[in-house]
């Protein structure tokens, strides 16, 4: 009787697995969180990428904002869940709670604002403290359209990014420079990591974006 029950349960699980696989409209799901000082253009980057527009006079984000975009990379559908956090200090406690589950962090600063660059070590400390240690971090210098007001030289930022083993990219949300590239590069990197993880762990550990399917199997083994 018991064995029958086990079988039955496994059967159901498999059914669900199949259906969920067939029904899912993506191959990978990644959570990306944008962080950085207030006013560096995090929201504009996200808007540019997800909606293709540059909102002039964008107000300060309250708490967290959420966007979703599905892209196709080498034939694989990748769903990007983008959490855009408020840069203001007063929302720090809620934004911190979003780092934890992130697969990737986009650490943004404003190339025309020295201060926002100087705060980066502080942000890195936050990442260290709150984010998952396998998180992919990319440093982004935004607002390159304002080249004449530039305060942080490219070389300096590149050196800094290298010293912290981060990727580095300069973007302009206004001119849409490098925005697409930023997210697509990040998605590629995440896929690469996910695949590597898959190989490394021989399918045992859940990896970013595929936690779902694996948890069914593991639940079966529990039953």
């Amino acid at each position, binding site marked *: 009787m018991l064995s029958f029950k086990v*079988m039955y349960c496994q059967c159901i699980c498999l059914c669900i697995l199949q259906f969920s696989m067939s*029904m899912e409209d993506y191959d990978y799901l990644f959570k990306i969180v944008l962080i950085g000082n207030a006013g560096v253009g995090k929201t504009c980057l996200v808007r540019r990428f997800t909606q293709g527009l540059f909102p002039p006079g964008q107000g300060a984000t309250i708490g967290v*904002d959420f966007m979703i975009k599905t892209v196709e990379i080498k034939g694989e559908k990748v769903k990007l869940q983008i959490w855009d956090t408020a840069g203001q200090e007063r929302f*720090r*406690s*809620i934004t911190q709670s*979003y780092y934890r589950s992130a697969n990737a962090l986009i650490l943004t600063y404003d190339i025309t604002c020295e201060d926002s660059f100087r705060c980066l070590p502080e942000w890195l400390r936050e990442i260290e403290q709150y984010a998952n240690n396998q998180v992919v971090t990319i440093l982004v210098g935004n607002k390159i359209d304002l080249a004449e007001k530039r305060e942080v030289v490219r070389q300096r930022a590149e050196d800094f990014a290298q010293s912290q083993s981060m990727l580095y990219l300069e973007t302009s949300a206004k001119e849409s420079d490098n925005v697409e590239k930023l997210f697509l590069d990040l998605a590629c990197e995440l896929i690469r990591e996910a695949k590597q993880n898959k190989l490394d762990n021989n399918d045992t550990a859940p990896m970013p974006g595929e936690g779902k399917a694996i948890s069914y199997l593991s639940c079966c083994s529990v039953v």
Partner: protein
Amino acid sequence: IIIFKLLFIVYRNFPFKFFDTLSHVRKRNMSFFGVCGCCGALRPRYKRLVDNIFPEDPEDGLVKANMEKLTFYALSAPEKLDRIGAYLSERLSRDVARHRYGYVCIAMEALDQLLMACHCQSINLFVESFLKMVRKLLESDKPSLQILGTNSFVKFANIEEDTPSYHRSYDFFVSRFSEMCHSSYEDPDIRTKIRMAGIKGLQGVVRKTVNDELQANIWDPQHMDKIVPSLLFNLQSGERTESRSPSPLQATEKEKESPVELTERCFRELLGRAAYGNIKNAVTPVLMHLDNHSLWEGKTFAVRCFKIIMYSIQSQHSHLVIQQLLGHLDANSKNSATVRAGIVEVLLEAAAIAASGSVGPTVLEVFNTLLRQLRLSVDYELTGCYDGSTNIGTKIIKAHEERQLQEAVIRTIGSFANTLPTYQRSEVMLFIMGKIPVPGVHPALSSKDSGPEGTRMIQVMLLKSLVQVTAGFDTTNMLTALPTSFLEPLLSFSLTEDPEIRLLVLQILLSLIDRHDNAPKFLNVSIISDISVLKLKVDKCSRQDNLFMKKHGQQLYRHIYLGCKEESSGQQHYEALFALLGLLSMELANEEVVVDLIRLALALQDLALSTDEALPVFNRCAIHAVAAAYLNLICQLTTVPAFCQHIHEVIELRQKETPYLLPEDVFIENPKLPSSLEKVEGEVLFLQSKITEVLGGSGYNTDRLATPYVPQYTDEDRLSKRKSIGETISLQGEVESRNSPEKEEEITFETLKNAIVDSVGMEEQERERRRQVVEKFQKAPFEEIAAHCGARATLLQSKLNQIFEITIRPPPSPSGTISSGYGQTQSRSVPIYEMKFPDLCVY
């Protein structure tokens, strides 16, 4: 269809090693059906049923009849539920992607109905696809879809499932709903709707997960850090807008629940479900939020939050919240005074709400924290900077803010103390007493750099706290409630030069002795011809009270006497002293005490007359007035007619000739006093002989009454100050006076009687003392014991030294007390308050 069904049955019953192959077969079947999707007859029945519920035109809404068919089918074949769900959800995501929102709504409606119709056991099969659809809706950026999804989720959350589910993850929902709570959509109406949807969603998640042990724990910080700030944000932002525009338009819309109310309800529900271990995770984000949004300064919101918290959580957990607040106060001790004052204010409110449960098991820890804050604040005020030199001059300390903080801390101490039972309260009193620095006595304990001014301020602050703690103190047994170790240091403060401190001590004494709320009736010194108007409440004096007076009566009298003698005493002091006399005779008087009090009053009169003391005229008049008012009171209490008559005569005469000797003329704003007080004699004075005579007739102890009262001095006087050379002389005088007849007399019958009555108490005391000594040797660090033993070896030497040094400075500590040869004082060598909390005493 038949093939498929057969296959499925086979599939179900096959041993599971064939699963792989079978699933392949099925997959092929599926694709086969997919290809033939156009030919309806070949589609599985559930798909046809699902398709049929969608009308041609989405405007028409759900096809009711077909929906019933689907429901019936789902109920009769629950094993198909998962596939129905999956197919519906597939359709829904397709419709979302194609922006066919009408169909989306219909699909959602159908799902809801199916969910409601199905039995609990079978829901599990269905929930997965349901949640997937809700997620799909929440992912869209259309507010209407988000709200639609949330509503469905809330419906689902209200279903009570009886079977646990292993594989649901609510992470996304928590994140998304929290995000919705912060929505900043342009249109304010829609924004409110989204935010409310977010709150409802969070409420749903909490309901769904809180009792399900298999779920990821909703109380984990990673969830709480999202949920709690989101709720607080709405609570706070709603408050802001409401106060800004309470327009009549809004009032009419009040019927709909406002987001603030909804938030509050949700917050209360969340807290109400918190178990012991979860309180911390729920409260920490609140503290963080208040920090980040700098809401402590405003106070009102912080207080409101914690009121909600205190009223919502289970009452047995309230002390945890208090502890967290205290911890937060400590963590903020370098923050600006307004922040600290805000936290203290919240503590005050919270303590009042939690009442008896607020302090929890660590009573002294609570008070220790508060006292430490008080002390820090005094230090900050005096030094003008926070000692951490890291934040260089960024914060300027404002003295008045620190003052406010100190007041708030003192009030909070009082409010905590009010929640304690009597025995704990006296423990707390002892504890605070042990913290009060006595100048020169505990040099290690007095504050480091602030010097004498700091010490004084701390004394004042701690005494003020004591006033708060003792307010409303009510004990049946004075003796246990006020042990020697408390009373003695307290009384020693009553002899300092500082009038403020003396007044505080008097206030403390008043509230300690007052057990029937008589104190307010004595607030004004006045001659009342009939004291029945005061409606004094008197209980019969118990045996313990008699013992107490036997033990401490003499001390109290002496302190009243010396208190009157202080030049710096003002009107308030005399009022308090009068009240103290009055209360003593109300609360603790037996015949003997009455006699002593009358003697004391007469001695006060003598004091006012004597020319040795260079007292100012005001003080003399005041003393006369106090004596007169008091004798007027006591004569009516004794109800001896002849006594009353004498007092009346004197008072009447005074009213005619020397009104400045009566309270009505002395204790007013600008008393008209004569420039000097030379000839006060004869009929305007109360006569000892006369009083003795009349009272003797009523059976009072005339021998005793005839002896004039002379205050006894003990070593503790020297603790307070007395630094002049004249002191040594008066000291010798005291020693003599002690050996004089007065003392002799004490040792006769009275003392023997006392000894018999007290012997039990003495024995207990002795035992207690032994226990403490043993404890000390067991617990104290080696150095301390060594020092103690060393001290004992040099006791004789030090005694001699101290006697010589008495004129230069007071003795180092009561433990080494010297007392010119009185074994009695030595026996209480180490006051209890020092031994009980050795580690806590050290700052």
